[in-house]
């Protein structure tokens, strides 16, 4: 209940953003991306899209205010462009491709590196967040995943997995049962 109130505040912030963003042809498109917790996947990493839909269902069940949706990019190039420019701050990739993104190697060699933090693992898949993704949102998201873990095949806490990518600080706080951080601490 307390969380719901705080989430309402987040939505108010998003509407304020919308008001400022609304006066360009694309302002509300950007606001749409802010209003919904979009989980990006790509056609080129085939398992990511079907799993993103399962993840979205679980998040919406545990955290309906997130209004989460799946968002499928055509190519790794589009993934890199949207993630690195923070247009889409959440991304589901297979572990190998996630590592390639951070290092700017493999399938991302042509498009460049993009820093990312881990939210959660799902067998060979990893949910990544932009480093600037607020701690509070990461905390809420991690909490929703923990609560819905039974519906998420292969869900594994990043604390219980061999470290291949840095964990998001908000996720660490959630996994350590620390209280939810304040919102305005953006990096």
């Amino acid at each position, binding site marked *: 209940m307390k969380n719901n109130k705080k989430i309402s505040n987040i939505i108010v912030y998003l509407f304020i953003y919308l008001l400022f963003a*609304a*006066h*360009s*042809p*694309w*302002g*509300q*498109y*950007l*606001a*749409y*991306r802010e209003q919904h917790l*979009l989980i*990006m996947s790509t056609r080129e990493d085939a398992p990511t*899209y079907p799993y993103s839909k399962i993840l979205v269902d679980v998040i919406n069940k545990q955290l309906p205010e997130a209004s989460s*949706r*799946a*968002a*499928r*990019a*055509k*190519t790794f190039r*589009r993934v890199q*462009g*949207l993630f690195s*420019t923070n*247009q*889409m701050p959440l991304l589901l990739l297979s572990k190998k491709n996630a590592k390639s993104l951070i290092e700017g190697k493999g399938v991302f060699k042509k498009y460049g590196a993009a820093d990312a933090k881990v939210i959660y693992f799902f067998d060979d898949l990893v949910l990544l967040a932009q480093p600037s993704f607020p701690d509070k949102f990461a905390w809420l998201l991690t909490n929703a995943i923990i609560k819905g873990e039974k519906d998420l095949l292969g869900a594994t806490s990043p604390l219980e997995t061999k470290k291949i990518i840095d964990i998001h600080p908000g996720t660490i706080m959630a996994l350590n049962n620390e209280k939810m951080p304040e919102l305005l601490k953006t990096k």
Partner: protein
Amino acid sequence: MLKKILYIIVVTVFSSFYASADTTDQKWMKKVEVTKSGDHCVDDKNCFNRYHPKIPPVAKANPGDMIILHTRDALDTGFRLDSTPDDLATVDLGLIHPMTGPIHINGAKRGDALEVTVIDIAPDEYGYTVIAPGFGFLRDVFPDPYIVNWRLTRIGAVSDGMPGITIPYEAFPGSLGVLPGEPEIKKWKSREADLAAASGVVLGPSAGGALPANICGEKGSHKDDCLRTIPPRENGGNMDVQQQQIGTKIIFPCFIDGCGLFAGDIHYAQGDGEVSGTAIEMGSVITVTVKILKGKGTDMDMPVTIGNDQIIDMEPTRYYQTLGIPIKGKGEIPPSHKYLDSSTLANLTNASEDLTISARHALMQMIDYLVKEHGLTKEQAYILCSVAVDLRVGQVVDVPNFIVSAVLNMDVFDKYRN
């Protein structure tokens, strides 16, 4: 031996007959063809997505040449027949609109006019229509993404997402134009900045995804002066006027020597209004010819279109028409009027002499009709209006209620055609 000679004679006679009957080897056209390479505009040296006079020509053509341009879809997306709204969420807005060109027209100077005749448009096999969040005429009513994927032939466009409907082939260039000159860049930037300062809906120069990158991109030489392609201006561009059909001539004022002709964003079909924000969008091969009208550009405010019976061919043989007057809900301010910040308008239920609110009224009634009488979802109805419903001004004199009507070509329903 005699048989052999007879055989040779017969073969020789018949082969010469076939050769003379074949027309394929007869050529008269001088062609200048600009092709595509790579998946997206960024991969293609013949593609750009911002306007600036420094963008170098990719080809030169003479008046009378067949100028053949291979074009990309408006959003430079890579959508396909199985695309879903989830794909629409990942569109990169910085890439809109990819244009093919520019073409330097030999002999054309600033101050001339360029008459462009649309000779042919060959459609791709696939097209799409979308509702993009925050874009389109009813963006407050339809906030979520939606996509209809079309299979295209020159007979019609059909879609699993729009069963029982066939949209007739009425292709035209959504964007066709010439590059602005330095004075135009300065003037247009200034007036758009003034409007933006008054909270108008304006998208100023933005370097993200801009092409060519060396001129308009993040580190480009003129990144602050490269204009976005969204609004049509005096140079044409994104006019989205469906009457510019194959066979019509569109005349543009030239702002730079060589004019800098370009085309892109070709539409398979579109209603007057393009209300959802997109027509049936597709890649294509468009062929045009040009003629230089010496000194005629200085007298022009905007491009003009000259046609013959094309406008008649597009008319429906049966139609359903809704009528809109400028009425609205109390407290309601349509998105188009928000920048006016008017409490006067908010409190009224009847606006004065307002075609935008009349159009909205007519369109909402048409959507209701399509939902109630033809079983479409609201999103399907909005998409159908975007590709096959024409918003038309009825009158602008009967104060305060100017009328805009919405005209649906009933022939789009398979049940009404043979």
